[in-house]
């Protein structure tokens, strides 16, 4: 899954996913559970809607002075003894990490869950350079064993059933383990404990970075984030520049809605605040702290059509409610970020051309917009994206011709009436028992599971003459 995107067509991957029994079972159980938990969390929290509005406003205000907040963040991190690195794109971000590993003699790095490092294909780059990355979030650990990529922003192994997980961990630890989440978690925990102690570097993302205090904030449920940031001698946090927020009071606001949206929790189990390396007199923490501030297509959208996607908190709520995601899972999308917001983020990171097919992977039902904690209008932006594909001539020529023709017909009542009449005539040649039995080629696949409606003998406009 490199910058060029996956091979093959999205439609084929989606169809394959529909036939994967394990995937269907795992997705249906997990997304239904997430939807219910989120709903309950907000039902018990009447302030929720108001806080969502405020969170959106903070994101918008931050974007308007993003340069200021980023500089403030960098100054404060440096004042605390940390090092700040700026990465224009994925390649620069990888190079910063690799150089640090080389310079500091790093052979093993433990990681807590981070989409930013997925975005830059960090694990492959580290392995290639002889550094062993070890994922310590349970879900990430599972998919690392499976040699896969996360299929959900917050639940990377959501596509796996517990039986599949038992097989993977059993194979890794070379002993049979029951398909019982508690047994499997305990086994992984014991295995990972030594890794934390052996690792030279801890690599994390950042859920937030607070500009006026220089604090990097990690939200986790397993405590692994705390180990990754305190046990190895070096901690590197990689974050997109959209993750900066102005102040600690803003952090309180976002923490109030993030976990509720993601997992339905009031707060996640661990909220880890990191301020630079270990200072004299402190008992724990790394000797060195590095913060990588990554652009990778983001700043170009501050004044671009995808601006609102920069509000995203990466909670994953829009994935759970998306009827398309719930049926095909994350891998079919073929990029780092799946689901409705993933389509927008992919366009942001890799350009419009990379979402020529994906831009249409939505029925525009609006469920994503409804649950988004910062109310990103994803359907509207998908429509804008589609519009951009037409303007940039990235949409298939046949499709553009078809819609141009449709536009011509629909703005002329005479042509429209003619088309309706032709449709009726064409249908008459294939009617059986009063219903069309043969579909035009473009609708063949539609009719594999559905009967076509019948073109009525008389349109409403024709019947109106008698109703008048």
């Amino acid at each position, binding site marked *: 899954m490199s910058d060029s995107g996956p091979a093959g067509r999205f439609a084929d991957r*989606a169809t394959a996913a529909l036939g994967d029994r394990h995937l269907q079972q795992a997705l249906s159980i997990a997304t239904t559970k997430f939807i219910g938990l989120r709903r309950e969390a907000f039902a018990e929290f009447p302030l929720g809607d108001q806080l969502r509005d405020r969170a959106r406003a903070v994101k918008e205000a931050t974007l308007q002075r993003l340069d200021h907040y980023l500089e403030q963040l960098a100054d404060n991190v440096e004042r605390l003894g940390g090092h700040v690195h700026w990465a224009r794109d994925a390649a620069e971000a990888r190079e910063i990490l690799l150089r640090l590993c080389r310079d500091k003699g790093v052979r093993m790095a433990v990681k807590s869950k981070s989409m930013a490092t997925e975005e830059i294909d960090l694990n492959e780059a580290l392995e290639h350079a002889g550094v062993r990355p070890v994922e310590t979030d349970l879900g990430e650990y599972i998919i690392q064993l499976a040699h896969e990529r996360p299929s959900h922003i917050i639940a990377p192994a959501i596509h796996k059933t517990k039986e599949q997980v038992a097989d993977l961990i059993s194979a890794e630890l070379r002993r049979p383990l029951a398909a019982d989440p508690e047994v499997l978690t305990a086994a992984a925990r014991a295995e990972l404990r030594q890794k934390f102690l052996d690792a030279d570097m801890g690599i994390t993302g950042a859920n937030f970075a607070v500009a006026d205090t220089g604090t990097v904030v990690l939200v986790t449920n397993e405590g692994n984030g705390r180990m990754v940031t305190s046990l190895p001698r070096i901690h590197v946090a990689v974050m997109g520049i959209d993750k900066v927020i102005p102040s600690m009071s803003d952090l309180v606001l976002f923490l109030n809605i993030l976990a509720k949206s993601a997992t339905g929790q009031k707060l996640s189990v661990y909220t880890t605040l990191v301020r630079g390396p270990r200072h004299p007199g402190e008992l724990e923490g790394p000797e060195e702290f590095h913060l990588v501030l990554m652009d990778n297509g983001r700043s170009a959208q501050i004044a671009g059509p995808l601006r609102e996607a920069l509000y995203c908190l990466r909670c994953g709520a829009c994935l759970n409610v998306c009827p398309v995601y719930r049926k095909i899972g994350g891998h079919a999308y073929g990029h780092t970020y799946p689901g409705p917001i993933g389509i927008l983020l992919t366009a942001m990171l890799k350009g419009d051309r990379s979402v020529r097919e994906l831009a249409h992977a939505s029925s*525009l039902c609006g469920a994503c917009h409804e649950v988004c904690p910062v109310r990103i209008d994803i359907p509207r932006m998908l429509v804008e994206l*589609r519009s951009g594909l*037409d303007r940039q001539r990235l949409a298939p020529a046949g499709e553009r011709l078809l819609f141009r023709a*449709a*536009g011509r017909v*629909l703005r002329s*009542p005479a042509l429209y009436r003619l088309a309706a009449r032709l449709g009726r005539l064409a249908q008459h040649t294939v009617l059986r028992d009063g219903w069309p039995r043969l579909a035009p080629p473009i609708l063949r696949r539609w009719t594999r*599971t559905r*009967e076509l409606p019948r073109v009525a003998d008389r349109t409403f406009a024709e019947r109106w003459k008698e109703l008048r």
Partner: protein
Amino acid sequence: MITCLGDVLFPEVGVAMVRLLRRLGVTVDFPEGQTCCGLPLFNSGYHREAAAVAARTAALFRDAEHVVVPSGSCAWLLVKEYPALLAHQGYPTADAERLAARTRELSQFLVDVLGVTELEAAIPGRVTYHDSCHLLRGLGEGRSPRALLTRARGVELVPLPGADECCGFGGSFSVRLPEVSSAILDAKLDSVERTGADCVVACDAGCLMQMSGGLRRRRSRVRALHLAQVLAGEGS
């Protein structure tokens, strides 16, 4: 306003709506020359074409006191998108703004404008209601259709688990990704059949086309009907 799918595929819904409105004392007119609201063009990103259709549609309804649309998605486009769409494409927006202000989806018109509190159902029985996405989330309307079905004598409204989840139609989505669309539809129809209802009611031609196509293929005893048909008869 009767838009393309309603005109060509489901004229009986329009007929039922006219009967219903007349029964309630409304003078109904149908300006000639209507085609489509432009939604398929708009949603696929063909905004120049959509605006051309929208501009002439808006002009057709210049003299109407109220504009009633038996399709939530078309009503959404008119109310929420027409003015900005036309402005972006360099058209005058006065007609579109007037249209947006006077347009109601059928159930909204019946409840908010006419204040219908009780009525007789033409097709009695056990029904369940599916929320069309654009009506529910686009126009924020889930209450009026349910209120009407609850008040209609002879109708027993049973709740549909996951009523607010998409049926998988999504216009060209169902043609571009027909297998995904079908898989979404299957979940919807399973839920519909489990309610034990005789029919599933919706307020959008797109959802009706999708659900009735799937129900007929399943040879289900459940029918998909428009709200207007339940309230005023099949319209055939």
